[in-house]
C-alpha cells in the first residue's frame, strides 16, 4: 500500500495569500493513500526540509508530494532532502502551487480547489514512481580530433595541455589545413604561416597527442565516453620512421607536373611529395594515382635514391582501432571554384581565379614567391577586380547563406594587391559589406580610404575576354544604377564557402546531423553551439558553418572546454529519466528508430539459453538517450516506456484530474 506524505508550502505569503494552504493540506489528507499531510510557511527552509525528513521516517512514507513552487526551481532541493531521509529521491514529486496557481489567480474558492486538485494529480502520480538510480557511464579519457586545421590544432592542444590524451586524424599528408595556405590574415595582416607553424610543430611534439596524417575515420561505434573508432591509415608508401626527410626522392621523381593542391592548382608537385616546406610531418608520401611505379609497374627511382631504404611500395592501408571518450569534428570547409559560375565563363578564363588561388599568388611561399603574376601569361596585373558574394547569398545557385569570411578577405586581397602595386587599380564589387568583428570594419575602411580601393556596390553580370583584357560588366547601384564595364588583368572571385564534399558521409559515420548545405548541425543554435545532438561529439570550426580564424579558434577552445569538462569525471552521471524497452512485448518493427533524434535505439537479439534466436527487439542505449519520450508515444504495443514519465504515472495523473465520469449503474 502506498504511504504518501503531502507537504504544502505557504512560500511566505506567495502561495498562502491566494490559496488556503491549511485547507489544501486537509483535503489532501483524505486522498486515498495519503497518510500524512501538513502545511508550513517555508518548506524549502531548513526546518521545512526537516519536517519532510522526519515525516518520511516517522510515517514510513513511500512517496512525497511537495506542493510548493515550480519543480524547475526546487525539485533538486526536495529530492535531496528525500534522499537524506533514507528513501529514493525519485519518490518525491512537486505540485506547482506557486507559478501555476497562486501567482496567476486571485484569492477565491476555485484557486484553493485547483491547488487541491493539483496535489491530487501528483499524489496519484507519485504512487507509481519507481526508485531510480543515476546512470553511470565510464569515460575513456582520450579525445579524437578529426581534422588538423587551425580548429583541430587548437582543440587538440587545449585538451592535451589539460592532461588528456588526444588522437588527431588528418586526411592530407600534413596538418595545417586551409590556414597554412593563406598569405596574410585579417585584420592584422600578419603572416599566416608565422603564427600557424609553431602550433603545428607543437602538435607533432606534444606527448599527449598521437598524430595520424594521411588517415581518415573509417567507422565510429559506441556512445559518449565509450566510442570505438576505426582509423584508416592510408598507405604512404614511405616508412616515416626510417625516412629522414632529406628530399632526395622528391628531387629525383620524374613525374613533376602534377597540379599542386596546396598551391590551389597554380603550381606543380612531384608524385612523391611533401605538400609544403613547413609540413608536419615533413616527410613525403607517394601519390599512387600519379606515380609511374603504381600506374605502370616500373620506375622505382625514389626507391633507388633513398639513402634510408624508406620507400615501401607494398605498404597497404592499415586499420587502427582506438577507444575514445569524446570526438571533435574539425574538418573545415571547402570553397567553390571559378568554374562554378557560368556567367564568369565556367572557369574558361585562366585569369579569373578564386580567393584561395589569390592567397597562393600573394604568398611568399607560393608558386610565384609572392610576386603577383597572373596565371595566363605571368604578367603582373595593373587592374584587378575582386567580386564578393560569388555564389554566396544566391538562392538560384543553391547557396542562400552568407559565406561570412569573404568581405574581410576581399578587403585584405585588395590591400595586398595595392601594397604590391601602388599604382594599380583595385575594384571590389560587393552586395553589402559585413565587417562585424573586432577591428574588422576599421580594416575595410583602411582598404577604401588609405589604400584607395574602389568599392562598387553592385553585382557583376558577366565577364568576357577581349583583346587580352577581361571585361567585367556590372552595375553600380549607388550611382543611379548605372552599368559599368571595367577592364581587368585579373579577376578574383570570393567564391562561396561550402561544406566538404565528404561531410555527409562523415556525419553518417558519426551519427550526427547536418543541415541542408551539409554543414554539421550543432545541438542548439544558441545554447549548445559547440556540441552536436549526439552526446560526446563536438564541433570546431568551419565544418559547422563558414567561420574565420578567430571564430574557429574560439569555438575550438570552447569545444576543448566541453571535452575537458567531460573528462574531469571518472564516470558520467546522468539523470535516469530515459526510455527503456519491454523485451517481452516488443515485436521489433523498429519504426521507433527514425523517431529518435539521438540514434539511441539499437537492435538487441533475444536468445534462448541454447543460443537460438527468439527475436530481435529494440534496445535503448542509456548513454545516448536524452529522455524526450517521442519513441514512447510512437510505440504501438507500448513496449517502450520512460522513467519519470511512465505510462502508468501519466495515466494516473490524467485519471486523477476531475473524476466526473458517471458509471451506468450509479
Amino acid at each position, binding site marked *: 500500500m502506498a504511504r504518501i506524505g503531502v507537504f504544502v508550502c505557504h512560500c511566505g505569503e506567495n502561495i498562502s495569500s491566494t490559496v488556503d494552504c491549511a485547507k489544501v493540506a486537509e483535503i489532501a489528507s483524505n486522498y486515498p493513500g495519503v497518510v500524512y499531510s501538513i502545511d508550513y510557511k517555508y518548506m524549502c527552509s531548513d526546518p521545512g526540509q526537516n519536517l519532510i525528513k522526519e515525516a518520511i521516517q516517522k510515517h514510513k512514507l513511500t512517496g512525497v508530494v511537495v506542493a510548493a513552487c515550480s519543480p524547475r526551481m526546487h525539485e533538486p532541493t526536495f529530492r535531496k532532502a528525500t534522499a537524506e531521509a533514507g528513501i529514493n529521491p525519485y519518490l518525491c514529486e512537486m505540485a506547482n502551487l506557486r507559478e501555476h496557481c497562486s501567482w496567476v489567480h486571485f484569492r477565491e474558492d476555485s484557486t484553493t480547489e485547483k491547488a487541491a486538485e493539483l496535489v491530487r494529480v501528483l499524489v496519484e502520480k507519485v504512487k507509481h514512481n519507481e526508485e531510480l538510480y543515476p546512470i553511470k557511464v565510464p569515460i575513456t579519457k582520450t579525445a579524437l580530433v578529426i581534422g588538423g586545421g587551425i580548429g583541430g590544432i587548437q582543440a587538440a592542444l587545449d585538451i592535451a595541455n589539460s592532461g588528456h590524451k588526444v588522437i588527431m586524424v588528418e586526411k592530407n599528408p600534413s596538418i595545417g589545413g586551409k590556414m597554412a595556405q593563406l598569405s596574410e590574415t585579417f585584420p592584422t595582416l600578419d603572416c599566416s604561416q608565422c603564427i600557424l607553424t609553431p602550433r603545428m610543430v607543437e602538435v607533432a611534439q606534444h606527448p599527449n597527442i598521437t598524430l595520424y596524417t594521411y588517415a581518415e575515420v573509417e567507422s565510429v561505434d559506441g556512445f559518449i565516453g565509450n566510442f570505438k573508432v576505426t582509423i584508416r591509415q592510408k598507405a604512404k608508401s614511405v616508412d616515416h620512421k626510417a625516412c629522414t626527410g632529406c628530399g632526395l626522392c622528391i628531387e629525383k621523381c620524374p613525374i613533376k607536373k602534377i597540379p599542386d593542391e596546396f598551391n590551389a592548382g597554380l603550381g606543380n608537385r612531384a608524385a612523391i611529395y611533401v605538400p609544403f616546406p613547413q609540413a608536419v610531418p615533413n616527410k613525403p608520401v607517394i601519390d599512387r594515382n600519379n606515380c609511374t611505379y603504381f600506374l605502370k609497374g616500373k620506375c622505382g627511382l625514389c626507391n633507388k635514391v633513398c639513402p634510408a631504404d624508406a620507400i615501401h611500395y607494398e605498404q597497404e592501408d592499415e586499420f587502427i582501432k582506438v577507444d575514445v571518450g569524446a570526438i571533435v569534428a574539425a574538418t573545415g570547409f571547402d570553397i567553390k571554384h571559378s568554374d562554378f559560375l557560368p556567367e564568369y565563363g565556367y572557369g574558361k578564363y585562366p585569369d579569373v581565379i578564386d580567393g584561395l588561388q589569390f592567397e597562393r599568388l600573394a604568398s611568399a611561399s607560393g608558386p610565384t614567391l609572392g610576386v603577383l603574376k597572373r596565371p595566363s601569361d605571368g604578367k603582373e596585373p595593373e587592374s584587378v577586380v575582386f567580386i564578393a558574394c560569388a555564389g554566396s547569398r544566391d538562392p538560384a545557385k543553391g547557396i542562400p547563406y552568407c559565406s561570412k569570411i569573404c568581405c574581410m578577405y576581399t578587403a585584405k586581397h585588395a590591400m595586398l594587391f595595392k601594397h604590391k602595386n601602388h599604382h594599380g587599380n583595385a575594384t571590389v564589387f560587393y552586395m553589402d559589406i559585413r565587417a562585424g568583428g573586432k577591428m574588422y570594419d576599421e580594416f575595410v575602411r583602411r582598404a577604401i580610404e588609405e589604400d584607395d580601393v574602389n568599392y562598387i556596390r553592385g553585382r557583376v553580370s558577366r565577364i568576357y575576354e577581349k583583346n587580352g583584357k577581361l571585361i567585367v560588366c556590372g552595375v553600380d547601384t549607388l550611382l543611379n544604377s548605372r552599368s559599368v564595364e571595367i577592364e581587368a588583368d585579373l579577376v578574383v572571385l570570393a567564391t562561396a564557402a561550402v561544406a566538404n564534399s565528404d561531410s555527409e558521409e562523415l556525419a553518417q559515420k558519426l551519427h550526427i546531423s547536418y543541415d541542408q548545405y551539409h554543414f554539421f548541425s550543432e545541438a542548439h543554435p544558441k545554447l549548445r553551439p559547440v556540441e552536436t545532438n549526439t552526446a560526446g561529439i563536438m564541433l570546431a570550426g568551419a565544418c559547422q558553418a563558414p567561420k574565420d580564424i578567430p571564430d574557429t579558434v574560439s569555438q575550438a577552445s570552447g569545444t576543448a572546454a566541453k571535452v575537458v569538462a567531460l573528462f574531469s569525471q571518472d564516470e558520467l552521471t546522468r539523470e535516469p529519466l530515459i526510455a527503456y524497452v519491454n523485451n517481452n*512485448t516488443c515485436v521489433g*518493427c*523498429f*519504426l521507433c528508430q527514425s*523517431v529518435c533524434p539521438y540514434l539511441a535505439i539499437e537492435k538487441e537479439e533475444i536468445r534462448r539459453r541454447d543460443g537460438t534466436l527468439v527475436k*530481435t527487439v529494440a534496445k535503448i542505449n542509456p548513454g545516448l538517450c536524452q529522455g524526450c519520450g517521442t519513441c514512447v508515444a510512437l510505440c504501438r*504495443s507500448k513496449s517502450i516506456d520512460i522513467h519519470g514519465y511512465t*505510462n502508468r504515472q501519466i495515466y494516473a495523473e490524467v*485519471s486523477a484530474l476531475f473524476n466526473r465520469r458517471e458509471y451506468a449503474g450509479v
Partner: protein
Amino acid sequence: MSELINKIRQFFASQTIDLFIGYKKGRFGEGKPAFFTKPEQLKELVFDDKCIVNLAVYLRKPELKKFSKIGILANFGTLRALLQLAAENQIVDGQYLIFTVVDGKVLEFTNLKAIEEYVSKNLPKPNPERVALLKEIESKPREERWDWWTRELSSCIRCYACRAACPLCYCEQCLVECNQPQWVEVPPTGIGNLEWHIVRAMHLAGRCIGCGECEAACPMEIPIGLLTQKLNMTIISNFGQIPGTKLEPNYALSTFKVDDKENFIR
C-alpha cells in the same frame, strides 16, 4: 492458370518450396484461402480478382514455422503487405517465393526488391466509390457525423476480427491487451468502441496498405475501412509517403519535415 500450376509443381518437385499458400474456389465462387502441401492438391488452385483475402496475414502463424520455404500467390494487397512487413522487420527477404498473375501472365518474384519495383509502377487509384462515400460522410454537419459514427461503432462487439484479418496487426501484445494502464476500455461501451477504432486507425496510419480486409472481416458490417483510408489519404497528400511501396522504413509518423503544413496550431 496451368502455367502457374506447372511452375509451382516444379518448385515442389525440386523441393524449393514445401508449402504453397493460394486460393481455392469458395462457397459463393470467390476465392478462399488454401494451403497446399502436395503438388497434387494444386488442381484446386484458383486466382482471379475475387481472391481478395490478404494472405500475408498468415505469415505470422507459428504453425508455418515448420515449413522451410513458402510460396505465396499474392494479390496486390498481399504484395504491398509483404513490402510493409519487410520494412517493419517482420519478414526476411528470401524466405518466400511470391507469385502473382496479371492479365493471364505469371509474375514470379524471387526477392522483395522486385516487388518494390512492380508495386511502385502499378499503384492503383483509390476506389472512386469509397472516396465518394468518404466525401459524403465528410460533407455532413459535424453533429450528424458524430451521431452516425457513434451509431455505427455502437454495433462493435470487440471481437477484433478487424485486427485478426489485418496483415499489419502483428503485435504480440495489442494495445487493448495492455492493462497497466488500461489504455482502451475493454467492454464494448460507446467509449471503449470509439477508443478502439481510433487506436486501430492511428496505429495503421502511414502503415495501412489499403487491402480492405479489416472491413471485410467485420461481422457487424461497420465501415471501419473508411477510417484508415482517410488517414492514408491525409498522409499521402500531406507527406507523400505511400505505405507498402518501399522496402526501407518510410513511416510518416516517425519522420517529419520542418515545413510540414498544418492550420490548427495557435
